[in-house]
């Protein structure tokens, strides 16, 4: 066995085919040429390598590309700088239309640092850009491509590496990367997924909290759904998703639920139900569901959309620019004649591609989309600034302006300082122009930066992998994504120690707030848009439950509950759009709150699915089959087939994980 490794070592260490002295000279020459270009130094100084044949022709271009790419090379910095309240760990926060700007997970152990960036400057070196032909932007080839990708299914990630990670989430951010490695089936070589430079935002899973020690749990709302899409894409490609890509609240929030609509002028309504935990008979789940007021589509204000489109060379893949064009075409019929659309491209075909145009003029918009071409390395400097300028030109009284940034993760937007970028986005947010980010393609997806940008822009961050997803994000949710109902929505639950000995918030790790942040209106949180829904699940343990993980304190002070029957007390704060002061909503959580309906059970099944994917220690004797059964029985109406899809993905995950189990 070691012999095999030694043999491979020896073979690999055999001298590589000699590069040839000319190649060497040419490379060194190019290096020096670019160095001089960069530093504007005179040529021919002392010990520079010299060559008789100069061939640095490609270098000028590359150097230019580099200068452009450098700016946001360190997403970690960007993410960290979004944290308004500097607390324990820099947690990357996320969001679609609600986004908290603060990350301080109560128990996160690491000192502030950028997540997952072991080495600085990991940008890929962009070499010559291929000018490959675009695939036609029709739906059919898209689907074919997805199907092809899933063909090599049943690749097997390392089951044991999951088991190794003690709490399932702690250090296995990286284990996820291993899981990406595909293992060939007997005898034949399965194509492994391409190596990626993806960067996901996540934080350590929430622990069980002891109510007597920490009775109050505070977090910001999240209506993002990007995590679900990434998970789906991974499973369809035949691998379990990297654990750090799993954010349970985003999985749960992906699905529509039938929550009661708010009454009167309230922007949203909270609905609470308590039911038995599917994976633990000794605990109960508390589901808090928020329903945003449904948009009055008829009298929505006029909308100004600026599409800011990444046309860099890396977008030149079927699942990127062509899909993006298709996605944007899908939104056009949803717009009204008085709405306006403009298109700005950065990198490649840079500049204003479409001047502000009435949305009704679909021919002009469509023709402009056709003109977009990926490729080239034209500096995209001021792409974002330009988009904002265009948006400012379009804005009229009472109108809503949005910049929609579509990219595969190279945020080479031409602004060199991440904090400058954040400031710009935040400033534009204050002036009413929000920024949403749509991610396309896997492999280079920079989840962290994507989330950070959208979060600061009060926008939505979504990941689009298929035409179906494009429809869901852009069309079904266009209204919600574009019309905010309430800003800085924070949730705080105070648990009653007489009824709840321990509790655990499932998901929302990247959304945790400090207890004192709740009443501090300067602390930013997530937004909720028209028609949006948010679901949060707590797992709670009664003091007398055998499932209790901690022992009661011998010398603990006796709690004196006001109403011993209440499980806890729910407080919500939000700001009406444009208002600086928050409004408070309060409601007790009682055990009599509605029992588990299909929606609640389905949400629980998805939360269980997420915990299985991350190897959560809280899900012990409950397995994939249980999750499937629970979800199957809770499909309800499911008019769009989202839940059926979820069940199928659970089955896929089950097969994949079984294929990986140690024999």
């Amino acid at each position, binding site marked *: 066995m070691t012999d095999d*490794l030694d043999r491979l070592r020896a073979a690999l260490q055999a001298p590589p085919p000699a590069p040839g002295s000319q190649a060497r000279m040419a490379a060194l020459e190019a290096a020096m040429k670019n160095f001089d270009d960069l530093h504007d130094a005179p040529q021919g100084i002392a010990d520079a390598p010299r060559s008789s044949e100069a061939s640095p022709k490609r270098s000028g271009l590359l150097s230019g590309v580099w200068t452009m790419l450098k700016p946001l090379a360190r997403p970690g910095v960007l993410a960290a700088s979004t944290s308004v309240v500097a607390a324990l760990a820099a947690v990357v926060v996320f969001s679609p239309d609600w986004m908290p700007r603060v990350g301080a997970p109560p128990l996160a152990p690491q000192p502030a640092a950028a997540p997952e960036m072991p080495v600085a400057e990991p940008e890929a070196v962009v*070499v010559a850009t291929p000018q490959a032909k675009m695939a036609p932007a029709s739906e059919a080839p898209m689907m074919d491509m997805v199907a092809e990708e899933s063909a090599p299914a049943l690749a097997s990630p390392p089951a044991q590496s999951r088991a190794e990670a003690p709490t399932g989430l702690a250090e296995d951010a990286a284990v996820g990367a291993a899981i990406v490695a595909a293992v060939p089936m007997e005898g034949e070589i399965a194509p492994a997924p391409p190596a990626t430079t993806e960067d996901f935002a996540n934080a350590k899973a929430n622990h069980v909290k002891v109510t007597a020690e920490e009775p109050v749990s505070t977090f910001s709302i999240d209506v993002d759904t990007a995590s679900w899409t990434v998970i789906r894409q991974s499973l369809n490609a035949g691998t379990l998703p990297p654990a750090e890509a799993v954010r349970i609240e985003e999985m749960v929030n992906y699905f529509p639920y039938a929550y009661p609509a708010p009454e009167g002028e309230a922007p949203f309504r909270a609905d609470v139900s308590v039911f038995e935990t599917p994976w633990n008979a000794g605990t109960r789940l508390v589901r808090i569901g928020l329903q945003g007021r449904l948009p009055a589509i008829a009298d929505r204000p006029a909308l100004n959309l600026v599409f800011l489109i990444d046309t860099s060379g890396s977008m030149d893949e079927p699942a990127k620019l062509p899909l993006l064009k298709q996605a944007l075409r899908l939104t056009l019929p949803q717009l009204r004649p008085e709405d306006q659309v403009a298109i700005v491209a950065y990198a490649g075909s840079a500049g204003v591609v479409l001047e502000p145009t009435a949305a009704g003029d679909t021919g002009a918009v469509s023709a402009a989309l056709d003109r977009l071409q990926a490729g080239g390395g034209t500096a995209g400097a001021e792409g974002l600034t330009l988009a904002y300028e265009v948006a400012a030109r379009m804005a009229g009284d009472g109108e809503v302006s949005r910049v929609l940034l579509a990219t595969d993760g190279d945020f080479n937007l031409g602004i060199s300082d991440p904090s400058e970028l954040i400031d710009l986005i935040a400033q534009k947010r204050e002036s009413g122009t929000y920024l949403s980010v749509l991610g396309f393609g896997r492999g280079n997806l920079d989840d962290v930066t994507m989330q950070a940008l959208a979060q600061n822009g009060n926008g939505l961050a979504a990941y689009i992998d298929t035409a179906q997803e494009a429809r869901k994000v852009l069309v079904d949710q266009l209204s919600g994504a574009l019309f905010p109902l309430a800003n800085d929505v924070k949730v705080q639950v105070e648990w009653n120690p007489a009824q709840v000995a321990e509790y655990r918030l499932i998901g929302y790790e990247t959304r945790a707030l400090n207890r004192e942040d709740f009443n501090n209106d300067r602390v930013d949180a997530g937004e909720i848009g028209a028609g949006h829904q948010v679901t949060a699940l707590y797992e709670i343990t009664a003091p007398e439950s055998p499932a209790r993980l901690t022992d009661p304190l011998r010398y603990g002070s006796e709690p004196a509950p006001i109403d011993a029957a209440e499980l806890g007390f729910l407080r919500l704060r939000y700001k009406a759009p444009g208002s600086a002061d928050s409004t408070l909503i309060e409601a007790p959580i009682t055990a009599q709150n509605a029992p588990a309906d299909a929606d609640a059970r389905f949400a629980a099944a998805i939360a269980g699915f997420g915990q299985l994917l991350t190897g959560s220690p809280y899900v012990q004797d409950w397995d994939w089959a249980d999750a499937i059964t629970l979800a199957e029985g809770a499909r309800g109406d499911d008019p769009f087939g989202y839940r059926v899809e979820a069940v199928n993905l659970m089955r896929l995950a089950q097969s994949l994980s079984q294929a990986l189990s140690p024999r």
Partner: protein
Amino acid sequence: MRLISVMRMETPDETLALAAAGGDRAAFAALVTRHYDRIHALAWRLTGSAADAQDLTQDICAALPAKLAGWRAEARFTTWLYRVVMNAAHDLRRRQMTRSRAADGWGDWEIARQDEASTEREARLWLEDAMARLGPDLRDTVALVLGEELTQAEAAKVLGVSEGTVAWRMSEVKKRLRRMAQEEAQ
């Protein structure tokens, strides 16, 4: 002159890199000359193709000045450099995929020279076969751990994954090589 170049040779990479980032031409020249072979060797181990390795090395060298301008001395220079090479190789793979070329293989080198000794050829074919079985992630990992003799911790830093992941990958490599040996024996 000679004295200077001797000093340069002894100057740590990190110091040279900092100087180069600040515009010191001689420091940059020393650095790139010192590491050219290292870059080329890793490029070859990652691609298995002499042509690709040569192009990749050229492109990396050309991109280094701009890359270095962002050098913050947050990691060892070689770790940083390996990562640059790794990313360039990944980028190459991606581009090859968009051209619908098989990005999956390793090898694809020129037809063996006729006069190549048969043992050499055998060794080369074995390596090609072995690497092809590993898949990109495992190949990247063995290129660093076996080819460059990095520790698992160093390789993890370069790859941007945890040490545990590297350990897992290496055990996976062992498994596959064993399977390959078993097949050979049959």
